[in-house]
């Protein structure tokens, strides 16, 4: 079984994140890049599926991003993935969700897959649409928002988290899966894993290598654009009171001034 896990490098949520004033894209140099948290769960699930297959599977990491995203690729390899493909090209800078899904679908076509595993959302773009878009572009089953995944032969079943509980969903491979955080507990890379990761193959793909039409990606190719942006006005320092026996009463007073009661 060929499993490809899509891993994104995102700015650390603990640092201040910014947009660039020149082209209104994410300022990736302003903050440290880390692996998108949910993608660790995606890697873990891919590794678990491989283990459940008696190791008869290859786990390939796919990352689209600038050169420094290799750090994130190494992290996924250190967790236990076998190899990686790094889709990287200046032409990709500024791609929106449609462009990203197009570029990644092209790369997936080159790599070949039975199963693609993603996180359900990234902490920077937070669109949560990529998995659905890949399923649409690749014409394969969409098994997203999964809290449980089971593969047996060419059948796949997931529990998909819904507004009201969950759905049991079934399909035949190939498929695209996205995972939510309660699906598993991601492993920490071991020292051995970290050392081994340094020797694992990372193939670099350019836009041309992947057969991506350059005018469909990047800032110019994007289907949507940021018109303007501004730092949010500070929330206005709130009133903080000490509990001292009347915290509930003071809160009720506040609710009255705001007309909630």
């Amino acid at each position, binding site marked *: 079984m060929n499993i490809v896990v899509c891993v994104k490098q995102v700015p650390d*949520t*603990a640092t201040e*994140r910014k*947009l660039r004033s020149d082209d209104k894209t994410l300022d990736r140099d302003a903050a440290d890049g880390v692996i998108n*948290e949910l993608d660790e769960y995606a890697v873990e699930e891919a590794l678990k599926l491989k283990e459940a297959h008696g190791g008869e599977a290859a786990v390939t990491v796919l990352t689209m991003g600038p050169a420094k995203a290799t750090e994130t690729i190494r992290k996924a390899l250190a967790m236990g993935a076998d190899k990686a493909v790094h889709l990287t090209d200046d032409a990709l800078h500024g791609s929106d*969700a*449609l462009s990203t*899904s197009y570029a990644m679908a092209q790369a997936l076509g080159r790599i070949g897959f039975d199963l693609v595993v993603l996180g359900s*959302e990234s*902490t920077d773009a*937070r*669109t*949560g*649409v*990529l998995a*659905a*878009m890949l*399923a*649409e572009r690749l014409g394969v*089953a*969409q*098994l*997203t928002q999964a809290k449980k995944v089971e593969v047996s032969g060419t059948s796949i079943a997931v*529990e998909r988290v*819904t*507004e*009201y*509980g*969950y*759905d049991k*969903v*079934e*399909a*035949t491979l190939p498929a695209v899966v996205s995972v939510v955080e*309660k699906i598993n507990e991601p492993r920490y890379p071991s020292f051995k894993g970290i050392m081994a990761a340094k020797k694992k193959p990372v193939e670099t793909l350019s836009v041309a290598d992947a057969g991506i039409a350059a005018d469909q990606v990047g800032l110019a190719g994007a*289907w*949507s*654009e*940021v*018109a303007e942006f*501004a*730092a*949010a006005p500070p*929330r*206005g320092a*709130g*009133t*903080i*009171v*000490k*509990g*001292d*026996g009347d*915290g*509930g*009463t003071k*809160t*009720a007073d506040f609710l*009255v001034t705001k007309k909630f*009661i």
Partner: protein
Amino acid sequence: MSEILVLVEHVDGEVKKVTLELLTLARGQGAPSAVWAGPGYTEEVRARLAEYGAEKVYVADSQEIVDYVVAPKAELLAQLVASASAGGVLVAATAEGKEIAGRLAIKTDSGVITDAVGLGEGFVADQSIFGGGVNVRSRVAKGTPIVAVRPNSVTPEPAAGAGAEERVSVTLSDAARAARVAERVKEEKGARPELAEAAIVVSGGRGVGSAEDFALIERLADSLGAAVGASRAATDLGWYPHQFQVGQTGKTVSPQLYIAVGISGAIQHRAGMQTAKTIIAVNKDSEAPIFELADFGVVGDLFQVVPQLIEEIEKRK
């Protein structure tokens, strides 16, 4: 005026409030056409949609549409975008709503904007990003604008529309039938307003201490007619069901009032609630990051503050 398609969110045959909000927003962009997908359509539904401005109500109520994951609704909308030459499409920014929007965008070769909290002239959408630190206005550069709007972004206002019913039949492609829903598991919901839609949300975290003590959070919620939410720490510990988790990997809420009780305010929690209009925090640790967001905060023991608050609310109502 061009038609603006609004995908109707419904549960147990009832139209959800977010749909009335979307119809209100759609009126600023063109002539709203509601799109009903799935079984359960009734004359009451049509009347309700018309009351909030739907000029047309497209009805595709075959079972098939809900038997497969997401793709059938995207196919239905794509068909209507073409036949109605729609000027834009609005869906609710739920996890599924965004996925429908994403697939529709590809089918119609159009741009998509997710998690809008406001919509201006020409489909320019307001978004709040990076944990609320930056406000953005975005627009679609190609195709038919598709926007996923967060619940509670606008107050729904009635405005009579013609509500002309039009039946639609969709022929699903094989690709749309790739992921089959074998079973639907509903976790009990109770009488409280729905979390994503509620005007007031009261959430409890690890500070609440036990499943039993979540009753206190529920009592506070009920005194305000609010929905109950929980932090991931509380849902992971099994104190409250997972479907009530607020945050990056739970529900995103944008209520008029959010009350965080015994919640520290981790970035992943904030990601799901920071667009609330007013935020109140109760926490015994004055350094808890939730206080950075709070319009009103009480540093104190929740077991002292909350019972008193409930009593005061009952008194003043």
